[in-house]
């Protein structure tokens, strides 16, 4: 089976800052690929390339076997790649239903009288969210009044509704508590079960191991490891992420001096 998305040896520099160096990754339908790394490791840069916000300098980017180079997020969207950013996911002051359809508004009428199909938009938003298990009383409320987890869920439901093949999530659980994180991870799993290929960015190895099928570890722009679920345990993942020996050195340093 060809991968939905395949990056091979991708590099990217911002001026003199080498944000990514020779990184490879695969995303398959019905699977979750986790990208793990510390702050500044290049995780966001990686997904911005997949999402079409940036272009890679070297390496190759293939969608279902065909090489691509997205000039804009719109192009990536047209290839079925939807991205949910932690802070860019929604426009807080706009009603839920307007956010749900933003950028892909259904319209009726013709010529200069082409207008939004508001009744349909409201109804579709309500049912699409209900199908994902999110029951909103009022789709007219500004989306900013929802909790962080709910907002992530609306963004995920939107991607699923618009038939995305690949769903990219940038640290969807970063700002959330334990319970809300759990809810979001459930929707991530629901998207996977709906047949989407998911890229999950996180620096929480426990979240990653709960749902992930493949793991890519980044450190300072380089790929330090690439595993499948069978190939690594949570503890190993945690250790790898913290930089293995670095952590042991840290543990040694922090140990109470013997009395």
């Amino acid at each position, binding site marked *: 089976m060809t991968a939905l998305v395949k990056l091979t040896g991708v590099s990217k520099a911002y001026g003199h800052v080498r944000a990514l160096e020779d990184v490879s990754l695969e995303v398959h339908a019905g699977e979750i690929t986790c990208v793990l790394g510390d702050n500044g490791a290049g995780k966001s840069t990686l997904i911005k390339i997949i*999402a079409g*916000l940036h272009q890679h300098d070297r390496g190759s980017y293939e969608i279902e076997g065909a090489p691509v180079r997205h000039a*804009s*997020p*719109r192009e990536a*969207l047209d290839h079925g790649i939807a*991205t949910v*950013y932690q802070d*860019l*996911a*929604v*426009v*807080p*002051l*706009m009603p839920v239903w*307007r956010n749900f*359809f*933003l*950028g*892909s*508004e259904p*319209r009726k009428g013709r010529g200069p009288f*082409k*207008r*939004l199909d*508001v009744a349909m938009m409201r109804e579709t938003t309500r049912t699409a969210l*209900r199908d*994902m*298990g*999110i*029951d*909103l*009383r*009022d789709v007219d*409320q*500004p989306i*900013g*009044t*929802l*909790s*962080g*987890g*709910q*907002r992530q*869920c609306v963004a995920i439901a939107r991607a699923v509704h618009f038939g995305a093949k690949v769903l990219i999530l940038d640290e969807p659980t970063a700002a959330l508590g334990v319970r*809300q994180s759990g*809810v979001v991870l*459930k929707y991530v799993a*629901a998207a996977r079960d709906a047949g989407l290929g998911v890229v999950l960015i996180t620096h929480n190895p426990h979240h990653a191991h709960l749902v992930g099928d493949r793991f890519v570890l980044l450190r300072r722009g380089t790929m330090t490891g690439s595993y499948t679920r069978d190939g690594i345990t949570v503890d190993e993942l945690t250790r790898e992420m913290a930089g293995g020996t670095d952590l042991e050195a840290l543990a040694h340093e922090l140990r109470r001096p013997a009395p």
Partner: protein
Amino acid sequence: MTADSLAPPRRLGNRLFGRPELGAVVGAVAVFVFFSVAADSFLRPASLGTVLYAASTIGIMAVPVALLMIGGEFDLSAGVLVTSSALVSSMFSYQMTANVWVGVGVSLLVTLAIGFFNGIMLSRTKLPSFIITLGTFLMLTGLNLGFTKLIDGTVSTKSIADMEGFASARALFASHLTIGDVGLQVTILWWIVLVAVATWVLLRTRAGNWIFASGGGPDAARAVGVPVTRTKTGLYMAVAFCAWISGQHLLFSFDVVQSGEGIGNEFLYIIAAVIGGCLMTGGYGSAIGSAVGAFIFGMTSKGIVYAEWNPDWFKFFLGAMLLLATLLNAWVRKRAEAAK
């Protein structure tokens, strides 16, 4: 998966509080009652025409300025652009001894081009619109005076009242109609049509959705494929289009144009939009609100005259109202954004 695993969504208290115009409507009623008591002649039917006329001259521009503000940007050049637009049609027609309609058409093209310039500069340079349109404001101010002096030798244009096409152009841009005691200027009609069209566009079209999103969350909008820069450029051209209407009104109601006019009006448009509930930070507001804001302006500016007070007080009122409206809006926004 169960729905109850999510915290119940918070409701935005009373729906009414979600309306951007709320503060402005309350303010308008208060101002109306105030001047009805303070000035006997305020309630006469004839006064209504005068107040509406004053409101419409600001209101025509407040509509696109409000849309632009919802889209997250300012236009400080809007006031002088009106004058530029009037000068172009007047001088073109006079110098070319052309039918005034030719001048009016050329003026439309030139004015739209200036709006386009503002939009392109914004998207290319990524500088704040405050700076870019301040630059345009100063350049236009200079060009208005410079060209007029260069061509006509004085600070005002020559009269074009005896030229071909003047009568029909005046009918469109500066005629008035009397119903009983009430004289109604055609600008009031323009104003109502613009408010209606803008409201429809904002609430019922894709462009409207994009305007709200471009102001309320440009990065989020871009990420889901909204053409943010194109939307903003379109808004600058909408401002230019309305500046053209206002400019033609200016020209055809007085035959001549004073080249120094219009400076400072950009703030009146912004004030009307802000009193009408537009957030300075973008993403929130309404065209109807801008109309209520302009109506408050009309009532205050004329009410003070009817009350036979020194008109110096006018600016004080305007300033106080602006502060109150902004405070109310900030409060509304806090409720709307009460996240987490």
